[in-house]
């Protein structure tokens, strides 16, 4: 079914349409949340909350604000980041290290089983270190270009083009 149509039905509180959207994006949202909070239980909880929150504010979405995926990705990143600022998270901070999502990928058996991500680990590890860092900061952690440029000590313009090149490389590998 047409994505625009699904989104429209979702906005009209059609639960069946929402289930389809959920199935399309649930793993992505969960992956982003996990990369930020690094805890399975918390990830499960936050992911659920994200989809409930999206349902509750369905009417606030419009294509003018961006893609539906991007919209829900933003909700997820904000929820996960909010959690990392909570007391609960700070108390369990001993586990926190600067894992890149690549490290998570490398220890994630999921990749070997999910057909749509077969070979992804391989592709990602093939990407240059800079690519991994840029992708992690921009997509998983929601860093702005400015924040990413400061973190990676790169000019803002370079972040933008480097990111473009990295994603293009990935697309070639994924064939999308």
């Amino acid at each position, binding site marked *: 079914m047409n994505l625009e149509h699904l989104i429209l039905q979702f906005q009209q509180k059609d639960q069946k349409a929402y289930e389809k959207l959920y199935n399309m994006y649930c793993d992505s949202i969960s992956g982003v949340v996990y990369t930020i909070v690094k805890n399975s239980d918390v990830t499960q909880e936050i992911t659920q909350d994200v989809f409930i929150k999206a349902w509750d504010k369905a009417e606030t979405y419009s294509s003018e604000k961006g893609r539906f995926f991007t919209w829900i*990705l933003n909700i997820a990143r904000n929820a996960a980041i909010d959690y990392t600022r909570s007391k609960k998270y700070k108390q369990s901070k001993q586990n926190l290290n600067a894992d890149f999502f690549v490290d998570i990928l490398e220890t*994630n058996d*999921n990749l070997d089983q999910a057909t749509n991500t077969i070979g992804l*680990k391989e592709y990602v590890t093939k990407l240059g270190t800079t690519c991994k860092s840029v992708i992690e900061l*921009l*997509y998983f952690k929601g860093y702005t270009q400015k924040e990413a440029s400061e973190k990676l000590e790169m000019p803002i313009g370079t972040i933008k083009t480097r990111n473009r090149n990295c994603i293009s490389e990935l697309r070639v590998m994924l064939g999308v």
Partner: protein
Amino acid sequence: MDIKKYIATGILELYIAGLLSEEENREVDALMQVHPELLAEVISIEKAIVKLTASGAQKDIAYSFSEIQDKINRKKTKIVPISRTKVNWLQYSGWAASILVGSSLIWSISQNNQLEQQVATEKQQLKEQIEKASTNLAEAEKLITVFRDKNIISVPLAGQKISPDSYANIYWDKETKSIYIDAKGLPAPPKGKVYQVWSLTLNPLTPTSLGILDTFTANTYKVFTKENTSKSEAFGITLEPSGGSEFPNLEQLYTLGLIASTI
């Protein structure tokens, strides 16, 4: 606008990442409407990012939409009470109206029942009156035939010392061994007393009770029928205690009449 150059800037990758300003987002959206190649590029980038991010999902986490659906629906039912109170007013007024209609219906039914009962009672009374009238007519007709029958002996009973103004008539049908007592000329008996009819033979004076007129007050025509099997020479009527006596109290003899053939 050179769309290829625009794409090459890397703005679409940032668009998917959600890192553009509101204005830039609107611009990309507007351009996608008119440049299909831009839309195709966005969809392609999005596919890559969806796959990329999905790779971070942990396989030990089980996801099911039904849990989300449960929570969504539970929230929905939580909101219900507000609208329910609104509905309740409707319900209440509906109940009130139905109670009103119901009670007025019950009232009119009971009114109707009352009227029907009244009509039934009146009908019954009327029926009884008609029956009574026809019975009375039949009795009167019977009396006339009795009075006109030549085989019936007519005996006038005259008032005695205790009540000189009293009188009575007895019609004796020897064939049927019955007498008809016309007691219209007797005063109403006092409470606790009753008239008793006697058949008398004169030598020696022997009274035989023919019965008491215990329905005297109720009988409209004061005509009574009794059986008489004795060889009567005279008839007398005395006032006796209610229930009657074995022998007549002659001091309370109201009327007495001799049968003509014996004189």
